[in-house]
């Protein structure tokens, strides 16, 4: 028999031996497969969530229909109240008006997020929500039920003496939390006393900012948000969003505005999304760490089980080595078991991924209103099975290495 033929025979016998060993120890096999499948599932779901977040972010920026985003520094998450962005862009009204003087800028609109206290009645328990302030209604805010609030009359050319509309939009999660609907009233303010004094009427349901921020929100005219948060003096905003004239060059305007307003960051949709994601580095790192931990723990579990396989069969393997059987067959048997565990665990993990995606998407839609938060792609499935096979192979290689190195008499 040729050298290659002999090797093929040995490998074929090792494969059969590995298969029979696995079949003989069904509980051990099941545990190992579940371990690898969980590692794969964690990987595919976390990667799917990452892709979904980026995709939804891009959709949100696209649906906002803005060409440029202006910030006064890092768009950080604030630690105050229920969360939201830091408002580091001051005098937003005058800055946006200055920007609108550029001949290719059609609109420059400030957008603010502030933490506010909200309750269904003034004597009730106040809860913190994100209050979103927009200048008037318009396409930036979509309404699924009811109607938009009308304009921003309270601003009155910077005097803040116009009549407040006392109209507000809420999202479905806020409606559920406060048990209110269109036509009901809520009290809103930056402080408890301010909230007790300011009553707003719910005129519509809008998912726009809940989906953008991933948390329940109330949306009102910008001047009224500044009024109830006592910030009319410096008119802070989170962003100024810019819409260009038809045919205008985005890059040229961005460059012009950046030169004219060097103290601000002026970004395109993609750049702004990237900046937001970069500032969530801890979240991203945590997600990455979870993927690594899932893969490592899957590997450790498989290695542990294979080490157990080797340990339980140490005398049988030693006897075969004493009989003159080379390490090739024994190592290939262990490696074969690892590979089979990896492939079976990987396939199970991939089979469970669509179920996990559906569950997480329904959960996300219920909790934060995002549809399709977790998304998969062929690449994710590819990497899932790759990780599973790697886990099996590495674990088997370590266990097989020990089999090859152990002298037969050590266990006889």
């Amino acid at each position, binding site marked *: *028999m040729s050298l290659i033929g002999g090797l093929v025979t040995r490998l074929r*016998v090792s494969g059969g031996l590995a298969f029979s060993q696995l*079949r003989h120890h069904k509980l051990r096999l099941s545990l190992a497969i579940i371990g690898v499948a969980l590692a794969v599932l964690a990987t595919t779901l976390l990667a799917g969530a990452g892709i979904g977040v980026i995709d939804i972010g891009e959709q949100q920026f696209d649906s906002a229909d803005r060409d440029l985003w202006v910030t006064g520094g890092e768009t950080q998450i604030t630690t105050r109240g229920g969360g939201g962005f830091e408002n580091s862009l001051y005098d937003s009204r005058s800055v946006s008006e200055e920007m609108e003087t550029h001949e290719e800028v059609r609109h420059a609109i400030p957008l603010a997020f502030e933490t506010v206290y909200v309750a269904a009645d003034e004597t009730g328990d106040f809860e913190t929500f994100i209050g979103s302030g927009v200048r008037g209604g318009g396409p930036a805010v979509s309404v699924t039920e009811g109607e938009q609030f009308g304009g921003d009359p309270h601003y009155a050319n910077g005097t803040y003496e116009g009549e407040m509309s006392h109209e507000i939009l809420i999202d479905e999660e806020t409606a559920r939390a406060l048990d209110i609907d269109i036509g009901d009233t809520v009290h809103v303010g930056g402080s408890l006393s301010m909230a007790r004094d300011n009553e707003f009427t719910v005129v519509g349901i809008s998912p726009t900012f809940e989906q953008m921020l991933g948390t329940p929100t109330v949306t009102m005219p910008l001047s009224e948000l500044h009024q109830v948060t006592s910030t009319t003096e410096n008119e802070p905003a989170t962003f100024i969003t810019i819409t260009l004239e038809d045919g205008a060059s985005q890059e040229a305007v961005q460059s012009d505005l950046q030169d004219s307003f060097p103290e601000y960051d002026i970004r395109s949709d993609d750049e702004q999304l990237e900046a937001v994601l970069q500032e969530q580095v801890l979240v991203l790192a945590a997600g990455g760490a979870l993927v690594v931990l899932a893969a490592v723990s899957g590997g450790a579990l498989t290695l542990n089980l294979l080490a157990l396989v080797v340990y339980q069969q140490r*005398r*049988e393997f030693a006897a075969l080595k*004493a*009989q*003159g*059987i080379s390490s090739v067959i024994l190592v290939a048997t262990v490696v074969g078991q690892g590979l089979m565990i990896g492939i079976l665990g990987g396939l199970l993990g991939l089979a469970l991924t669509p179920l996990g995606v559906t569950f997480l998407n329904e959960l996300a839609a219920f909790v934060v209103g995002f549809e399709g938060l977790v998304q998969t792609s062929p690449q994710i499935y590819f990497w899932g099975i790759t990780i599973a096979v790697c886990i099996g192979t590495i674990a088997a290689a370590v266990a097989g290495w020990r089999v090859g190195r152990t*002298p037969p008499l050590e266990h006889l």
Partner: protein
Amino acid sequence: MTVQPSPASSTGESTDTTPMIVGRNLQKEYKRGSEPGRIGRLLGRSDPPAVRALDEVSISVANGEIVGLAGPSGSGKSTLLHILAGLELPTEGTVTFQETALNSLSRRERTRHRLEHVGVIFQHFHLLKSLSARANVALPLVELGVSKSERRQRATALLERVGLEDRITHRPGELSGGEQQRVAIARALVTDPKLVVADEPTGELDSETGKRVLNEFRRVAEDRAVILASHDRPTLRIADRVVRLQDGTISDQETEFESTSIHTQGE
């Protein structure tokens, strides 16, 4: 003490007196504990004490001869058995199998040597539980490149020879201790080795089953050398001569170890 092959077996059958395997001046030392590492040496740890398991032992075994190794636990009989089988090397001395000096072989060559020339049988059988009796027996033939059909044929023939024709497809868990030991004997013989070594081959068996297994050894010894290590007198009765070890040296040799004719019921 040097122990030579007996001129004839105690069964009265003629024996080829040409030595199959010869061990000369065998010494074996083991370290009691691990060697100190660099840090251990820096901390003043010295080498562990050496224990001499064999001391100046010489032995030869001829084709067709059954040699028993007797002695109390720790006397060195298993060590001598392992050295003669090529499972380990002596610290001093030489082992020559036919004309091959085992000391000169690499580990891989010794593994190949065992595959081709030595059958090893253990007290605890050590069969793979997931494989049938036939697959266990046939496994060493894979290493020799024997075709699948011939592997099955040879394994089946050997299992029939040891009286397990109706247990061929059974797994070890479905076999009694005696049946498992006979499978292990068949596995040791499947490569047609010239030397068979067995360490306490009846240690796990009741006396009746032990007799049946020992009869297999008598048949095995027809055209090969057999070395049995045991402290069980009935087991040693089948030996043509018994070499007794004490504290790593040969203390005695008996060539008249009572009658060796052992029959199971019904035979």
